[in-house]
């Protein structure tokens, strides 16, 4: 089966796609952390414009970007709406029960903008490489071995287990079961999940045995050869300066 993948368009050629993965992770993560804590509305707006322009530079199909970002942005927008109505302050529009305050509008908008900017950067970081490249970059960045391995193996088995889970759901629906949030529905889903856990546990044991049979001693090695080029250094410096800049600029 096929799944909607974040790295479906990782083979496109663009400046961002060609950016060295390890440098990309470091600089984009710096940007995410920087954008998430912007204090000024103007700078936040700039950050959004900057990340949107990166989408265009990345040449990712707009339909794909829209499909991937729609729900996360709706979710952030909901926070904005809630803030508008719930933060206390000077009422700008309102009646007896509901009212929008200026403070709420401002804070809500700030959160919405910086969250959107960070979201887009995070999305670009993942969408412009194959996922296995990201994993290898994490491995090279010396993230603790246990964590890298857990990400590697969990990621791999999500695909196997989604297929298995789909098959189980199909066989249930072939017997007339429909997922509903009632007592019977929930306890049947409980059995389904229980079954999935039992099968996964047994698969885990088989995977372990097959690793042992190939000499696994807890530290698998992965080959990586990402050479840093001049353009990578230039891009890295630019991004880092930008990440720091959005916080220094308002102070000046």
């Amino acid at each position, binding site marked *: 089966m*096929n799944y909607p993948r974040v790295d479906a368009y990782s083979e496109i050629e663009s400046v961002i796609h060609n950016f060295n993965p390890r440098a990309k992770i470091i600089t984009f993560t710096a940007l995410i952390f920087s954008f998430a804590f912007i204090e000024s509305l103007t700078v936040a707006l700039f950050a959004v414009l900057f990340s949107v322009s990166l989408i265009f530079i990345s040449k990712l199909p707009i339909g794909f970007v829209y499909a991937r970002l729609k729900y996360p942005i709706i979710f952030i927008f909901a926070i904005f709406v809630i803030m508008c109505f719930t933060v206390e302050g000077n009422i700008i529009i309102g009646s007896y029960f509901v009212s929008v305050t200026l403070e709420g509008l401002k804070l809500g908008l700030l959160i919405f903008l910086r969250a959107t900017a960070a979201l887009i950067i995070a999305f670009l970081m993942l969408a412009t490489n194959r996922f296995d490249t990201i994993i290898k970059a994490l491995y090279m960045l010396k993230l603790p071995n246990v964590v890298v391995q857990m990400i590697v193996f969990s990621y791999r088995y999500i695909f196997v287990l989604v297929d298995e889970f789909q098959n189980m759901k199909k*066989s*249930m629906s*072939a017997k*007339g079961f429909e997922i509903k949030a009632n007592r019977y529905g929930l306890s049947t889903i409980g059995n389904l999940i229980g*079954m999935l856990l039992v099968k996964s546990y047994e698969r885990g044991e088989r995977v372990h045995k097959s690793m042992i049979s190939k000499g696994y001693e807890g530290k698998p090695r992965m080959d990586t050869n990402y050479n840093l080029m001049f353009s990578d250094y230039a891009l890295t410096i630019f991004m880092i300066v930008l990440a720091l800049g959005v916080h220094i600029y308002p102070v000046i």
Partner: protein
Amino acid sequence: MKKTAVSIKNLDYTYPNSKKVLNDVDMEVFEGEKITIMGPNGAGKTTLLLHLNGTLKKSNSDDVYIFGQPISSMNIKDRIQYVGILFEDPDDQLFMPTVYDDVAFGPYNMGLDKKEVEKRVKKSMTRVGLQGFENEVPQHLSTGQKKKVALAAVISMEPKILVLDEPTANLDPKSKSEFISFIRELNEKEGITTIIATHDVNTISYLTDRIYVLNEKIVASGTPHDIFSNPELLKQFNLEAPDPLKIFRMLECFGYDSKNHPLSINEAAENLINTMQENGDIMNLQMDKDAYENIKQLVNLYTYHPF
């Protein structure tokens, strides 16, 4: 004239974000027939089967009809009453804590009352030869037993059409034969229409009136003898004929003369005895100058291991 049990017209199917899996599939299955669907790995066999009870369906077109009714207009209870599907891996189908619950699952979803459900569980368990196993945990059974329980969980819905995906996979030869006999009995005694997708040519003799060869579309159909006398077709779609048929075609090169080619050992035994009797209990096999070449050609046509 026989009633049409399943009729499929111009069925197309594409999984989301994927290439076409089924392309303009046409199929007609009559009541009481035994159909086998063959095709290479990845030909879309399982996808086709999932359309037969509406597990997969498109809302905007009527391409699958069950006893004349478009499946898209049937509600879930009707659908499962007509068509029961046995999937390949029994572990995907047994998810309840006890065998009883698993076999009762379908009937319960059909809205039957407790007494009727109980009756059906008992009947189905007896049918598959596992009476007394109702309180076992399905996960603790052997592969063969799990497969039988999975089947009981389908026949407890008393479907008129039984759809089976690779029913003999991973079974040892004895369990396999038991399973085959059982399906055959359901067909013969209760008139249940069976539709089977399989690679296992040893089931053909017992469970097949007609074969459809599927490779995204229906590329051929006919009786087993039609299909298996076309070795080019078999090669093209990674299939093979049963060994007895191949051997009897070789015997023909020496002058053995029989009306048809056996598909199983049982058929081979009958064929030998009948042919001998018809020939006055005697037959002369002769090797002429072509025989060697013919046999060589047969092996190369019918197997993937060159002569």
